[in-house]
């Protein structure tokens, strides 16, 4: 089988340098001492000028975290993490006075330039709006997170006019404490799980979005995460609240510089959708996956959950996961409001020694709630990829409906693909359908493409993109192109 030989050769060729975005920005850092104790929690809180209630909230989380155990049920393995051997606070050196774009550290701007992705439009980053009619696409507001502190937020004004609050969560704590206090931890309680508790204790920054009643957010909101400093775990906290009849589309994307030591990333994202509200949350995750031997790479242990509190509300998660050494992530929907809708569209690609255990939870509580799960998993190299999902129908969720489709594609005979769905129904008037398949790229399809002159790599790229089409088409336009590119880059060298 020439294809197999070619594949093997290509895999062997795949060296260290395939991570295009591995670079480190040299900015002076403001670091807290290594280790984690109540003093560090107090220090973080003090640095951020936080009110007393938030400090208490953090301390509660920290105390609960101390009594919790790291979860071991996921199908991932890694050496034990020393939680005391990391800095829990790192901020880019602050400059005096209010920030404007000109004052942004040029190193930082260069970093974004190298990323070459949705921050691509310099005009956007510089805050220059194109005249109406000339806009090729709807503008994107960017809240750039550079390590732990949001440095710059664009488009604040346009959003303010619409009544939308989009700012770093640390700022929201100062300016909209009533909103933050009301919703923070209301979807993911402080002691929800080990990593969420850790995040609650030490989160440094993240985004806050509030869309008031009846407002359709005039632009897509976007945050770019970067993990930059050596040995700083990053603990993002995102909170999005969308009031009755309002809607928002949020994009989250990330690339991280190349480095050797494993880094922990334990983010928490909370979404709240009230009556008739809709939230679309899209992620492209492309953190450093480690080298071909599995050295280094990001540990991505994320808790993402959305609450459809109001009737007919809708939360839709779309994710393209190509990076990280280990992914542990289950964006979920609590479908509480009658007729609310939850969606989960996912593409997870693992190569080399990556491990991914990802999926979703759909908790049907209200009547006539609906959920759709489409998960596409692609494993190559020596990687392991698991879909783990839960569909639970509570006794009162009459008329609930779920459709789940999980497809796995294996490239090479050293990787693994696993599917672990949990289906629990306690209502006779609910309907649940689940289907899953695992296969390799069909020889026929490959042959068809090769026969028409496509190289094997292009052919595989085409087939993989087709395999993921159901998910990619859910991405906002800005992301769709990038995601397709990412898929190809992630699988580079894994096929002949």
């Amino acid at each position: 089988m020439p294809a197999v030989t070619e594949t093997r050769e290509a895999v062997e060729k795949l060296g260290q340098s395939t991570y295009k975005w591995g670079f480190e920005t040299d900015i002076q850092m403001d670091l807290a001492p290594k280790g984690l104790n109540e003093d560090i929690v107090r220090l973080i809180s003090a640095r951020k000028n936080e009110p007393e209630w938030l400090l208490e909230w953090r301390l509660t989380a920290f105390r609960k975290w101390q009594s919790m155990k790291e979860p071991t049920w996921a199908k991932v393995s890694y050496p034990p993490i020393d939680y005391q051997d990391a800095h829990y606070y790192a901020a880019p050196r602050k400059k005096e006075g209010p920030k404007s774009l000109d004052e942004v550290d040029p190193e930082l701007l260069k970093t974004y330039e190298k990323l070459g992705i949705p921050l691509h439009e310099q005009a956007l980053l510089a805050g220059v709006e194109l005249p109406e009619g000339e806009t090729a696409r709807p503008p994107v507001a960017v809240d750039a997170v550079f390590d732990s502190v949001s440095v710059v937020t664009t488009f604040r004004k346009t959003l303010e006019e619409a009544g939308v609050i989009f700012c770093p969560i640390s700022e929201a704590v100062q300016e909209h404490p009533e909103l933050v206090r009301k919703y923070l931890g209301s979807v993911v309680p402080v002691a929800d799980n080990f990593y969420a508790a850790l995040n609650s204790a030490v989160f440094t920054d993240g985004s806050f979005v509030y869309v008031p009643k009846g407002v359709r957010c005039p632009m897509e909101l976007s945050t770019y995460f970067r993990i930059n400093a050596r040995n700083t775990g990053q603990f993002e906290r995102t909170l999005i609240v969308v009031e009755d009849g309002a809607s928002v589309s949020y994009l989250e994307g990330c690339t991280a510089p190349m480095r050797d030591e494993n880094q922990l990333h334990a983010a928490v994202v909370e979404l709240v959708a009230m009556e008739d509200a809709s939230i679309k949350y899209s992620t492209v995750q492309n953190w450093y996956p480690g080298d071909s031997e599995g050295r280094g790479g990001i540990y991505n242990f994320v808790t993402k959950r959305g609450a459809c509190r109001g009737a007919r509300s809708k939360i839709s998660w779309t994710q393209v996961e190509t990076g990280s050494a280990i992914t542990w992530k289950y964006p979920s929907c609590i479908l509480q409001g009658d007729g609310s809708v939850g969606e989960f569209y996912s593409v997870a690609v693992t190569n080399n020694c990556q491990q991914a255990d990802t999926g979703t939870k759909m908790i049907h509580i209200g009547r006539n709630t609906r959920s759709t799960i489409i998960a596409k998993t692609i494993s190559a190299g020596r990687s392991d990829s698991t879909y783990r999902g839960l569909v639970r129908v509570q006794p009162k969720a009459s008329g609930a409906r779920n459709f789940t489709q999980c497809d796995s594609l294996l490239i090479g005979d050293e990787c693994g693909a696993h599917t672990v769905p949990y289906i629990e129904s306690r209502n006779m008037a609910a309907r649940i359908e689940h289907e899953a398949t695992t296969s390799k790229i069909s020889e026929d399809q490959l042959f068809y493409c090769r026969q028409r002159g496509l190289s094997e790599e292009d052919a595989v790229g085409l087939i993989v993109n087709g395999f993921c089409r159901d998910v990619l088409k859910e991405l906002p336009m800005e992301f769709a192109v990038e995601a397709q590119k990412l898929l190809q880059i992630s699988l580079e060298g894994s096929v002949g």
Partner: protein
Amino acid sequence: MNAISKDMSGPLSSFAQRLNDVEGAERQAAIGALLRTGLPDRHVEAWKYTSLRPLSAQEFQAPPAQYDAAQAKSLLDNLLSQHDAVQALPRIVFVNGRFVKDLSLLPEGVDVSFFSQNSLTSDVQASPDRDPLVALNTALVDDGAILHVAKGADAGRVLLISLGVAGDTAISFHPRHSVVLEEGAHLALLSLSAGVGPYFHNPVTEVTVGESAKLYHTTLQTEGPQAIALATTYVQVAGHGVYNSFALGLGSLLSRHEVHARLNAPHAQLHVNGAQNLAEHQVGDITSVITHAASDCISRQTVRNVLDGHARGVFQGKVLVEQVAQKTDGYQMNQALLLSENAEIDAKPELEIYADDVRCSHGATVGALDDDQLFYMRSRGVPEAQARHILIAAFLDEALSLIEDETAQEYCRAMLAIRFSAERKAA
């Protein structure tokens, strides 16, 4: 001695006295394994949906030497009278876990022997270290049938019958069966179980299907309404061998039918099908782990659940494809019909795949009776109750049609019909 009983907490304490009296190195080792893990609670992933707490409710005594013989006879007659074809079949009958010669009719084509008190030998597949229920069985086993079918022999049909006859005190019995088919051998085995009173039936069965051999194994569980029946079966299949099984669960307060099947050589086949029809407060668990350890093997699994009243059905099905198992063809389907507001199904179909040239799929559906189908029947003058009954019967019948052995299939149908008519009378 007392140290042991002190360590026994939870459901295990229900057996403390008897475990204290156990002798023999192998049994002691099994107790050691048990003490390390205890009986599983719901924090153990494999027992996430089924709680063994009902075992804690009472202490289980060793079955007394004497039992109500008339009761046993009537249970047996009741099982045999349901279908003409089974009456004359050779049968191996156990009462309270011990072989009873008077009730049996030993087969000719099969070499039958029995586990005596001290000849606990076969731990080839069922290891006390891996499975606490196997450990409990190993520690307390009294008896069991060892069936051996010689090379190339067609042993026809054999009934393996377990009767539980308990009086006022709860008893438990832990038979250990073994079925070995040599190369090219054939056997159709029907495992039947029934009983009265409070008892715990904990059988472990080890099956070895030789090269090109074929075993049809149909299990019909009609244990008594107070019974707890936790059955574990280990199966290994050699090249071109076929293990074709079906488990129909109707009885017990709490039951678990757990199968660990392993395809050991190329072109082996597994069919691990099943159905259960539960009502009231019954809990029925169908769990399987199918391991493809060789290339070009086929596994098929279809499980259907009908749940009424407060019944809860559990399905856990794992298909593991090892790296060597290229060209694997695996299919798994679990379907549940919920007939009442209080019924519940928990399903976990699982694929774990390490080979790339495979075709594996699974599906699961959960729902109520189809309104359109009901309407179709009612618009043709079929009363609602009857229409529902027809649809439910059809749903299960489709599963029963997977039973390859015709006699077994007809027998299961007959038993299901009896269950339905009893339900209708109750209604």
